[in-house]
């Protein structure tokens, strides 16, 4: 039976030594302390426990208190483990419950269906996310997040400061990229992405989905952007600390995305070996890679919170798989009719002959129209460039022949 070695040595770290609390249940020391802190609703008490343990200890304590953590995340380090449960953990903390009780409360809440925010083509979601505010949709969150810059302290260009404040305060910001550089190489976007990751907010609107910063590029480029943002933050943090460290000053405030091994070196005293190790870590790109992995992992989690799956096949990929040909419709007078045979987060494919499909982006739907599902029969009427979509739901046609 495949398992995982929680402890490789014969001596358990203190946080993993078993104990029994007043409720009579045996848990690890860390698990007992974490549950106690959650029940008290004390954030400082909880964070002290988490900071006192390594990634494995934190994962064990979280699992014992009802929060799930997968093994690959543990390998990314303590901050990745913490980010992966941050939202549920803080909700449990505010309610004074552990993860098991929180899950029960979510299950009860989801049995009352709540309509998703008023956006074209979004239908009420049936799973537990429906009961909570979806991260990234609230423009207020993103505004409050980025407003950390105090204009009173700014000594540069006052006009630029005003423009920046305008952007920060707006509910919706449309972004146009000039030139060919990919989004992941644009400083302003990296800044916004990095801030969003730190605060656990997905602030970008793409593929017709809502979000404060509306962009024309897609999910794959956004993942790259967030990966590179985390990389930039970690590498900058190390670079900024190097001069002081070399001069014998105490290093403080290294970013959490810097790998634990490098943090340990920089928080310790400078020596030739330590300096060589740090420089090697920077030059081989291992700091960047580690931080980038955390960035991708955390961003994937934020998208999952919106009901988006980065691994789901796009309609183009599905079309290739089935050998369908995506056609360009006659936008002046074309009339097309057929079942929906593929769906992704952005569009569906409507099959109007044996091997031909048309792409129907959800942005083309009328306000109030729900997104067509697999098997629904769709009628698309083009007239002088305008498109009218008619959807007939076919209950019981789940798994109809493609």
């Amino acid at each position, binding site marked *: 039976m495949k398992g995982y070695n929680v402890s490789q040595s014969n001596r358990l770290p*203190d*946080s993993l*030594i*078993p*104990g*029994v*609390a007043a409720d009579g249940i045996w848990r690890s*020391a*860390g698990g*007992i*302390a974490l549950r*106690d*802190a959650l029940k*008290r609703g*004390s954030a*400082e*008490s909880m964070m*002290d*426990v988490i900071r*006192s*343990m390594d990634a494995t200890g934190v994962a064990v304590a979280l699992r014992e208190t009802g929060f799930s953590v997968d093994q690959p995340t543990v390998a990314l380090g303590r901050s990745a483990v913490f980010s992966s449960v941050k939202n549920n953990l803080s909700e449990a903390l505010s309610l004074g419950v552990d993860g098991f009780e929180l899950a029960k409360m979510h299950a009860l809440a989801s049995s009352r269906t709540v309509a998703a925010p008023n956006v074209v083509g979004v239908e009420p979601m049936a799973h537990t996310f429906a009961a909570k505010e979806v991260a990234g949709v609230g423009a207020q969150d993103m505004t409050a997040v980025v407003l950390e810059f105090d204009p009173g302290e700014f000594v540069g260009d006052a006009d630029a400061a005003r423009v920046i404040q305008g952007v920060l305060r707006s509910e919706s910001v449309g972004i146009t990229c000039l030139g060919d550089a990919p989004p992941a190489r644009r400083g302003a976007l990296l800044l916004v992405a990095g801030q969003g990751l730190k605060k656990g907010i997905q602030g970008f609107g793409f593929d017709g989905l809502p979000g404060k910063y509306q962009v024309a590029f897609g999910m794959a480029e956004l993942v790259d952007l967030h990966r590179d943002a985390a990389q930039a933050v970690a590498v900058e943090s190390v670079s900024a600390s190097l001069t002081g460290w070399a001069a014998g000053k105490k290093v403080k405030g290294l970013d959490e995305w810097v790998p634990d091994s490098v943090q340990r070196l920089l928080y310790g005293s400078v020596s030739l070996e330590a300096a060589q190790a740090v420089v090697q870590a920077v030059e081989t790109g291992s700091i960047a890679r580690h931080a980038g992995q955390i960035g991708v992992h955390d961003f994937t989690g934020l998208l999952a919170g919106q009901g988006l799956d980065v691994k789901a096949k796009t309609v183009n990929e599905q079309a290739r798989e089935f050998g369908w040909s995506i056609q360009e419709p006659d936008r002046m007078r074309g009339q097309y009719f057929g079942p929906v045979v593929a769906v992704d987060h952005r569009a569906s494919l409507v099959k109007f002959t044996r091997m031909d499909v048309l792409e129907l982006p959800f942005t083309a739907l009328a306000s109030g129209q729900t997104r067509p599902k697999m098997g629904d029969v769709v009628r698309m009427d083009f007239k002088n460039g305008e498109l009218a979509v008619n959807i007939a739901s076919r209950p019981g046609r789940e798994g109809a022949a493609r």
Partner: protein
Amino acid sequence: MRKENVFLVMGRLCDAGGVPRDAVQNYVVCGATEDSMREFVGRVMPELLILSVVGLIALDNLSGKIKTVLSGADESWPVLVEPGL
């Protein structure tokens, strides 16, 4: 000191507001009984929140049981041994 008087106590020190802070700390505490031991700790370390108490005797008995099962004298748990040992 006898086994039944020795306890592994896990606790956290509380701040002025009564909120437990810092890491969990293990203490080896000796007392006549678990109850008297708890009272004693409450007197000498009132700021300590006791999270867990495990008697050495329980841990020792567990260790003893494993060895007895291995020897064959206790058949309540199955024993499997990798060939070659």
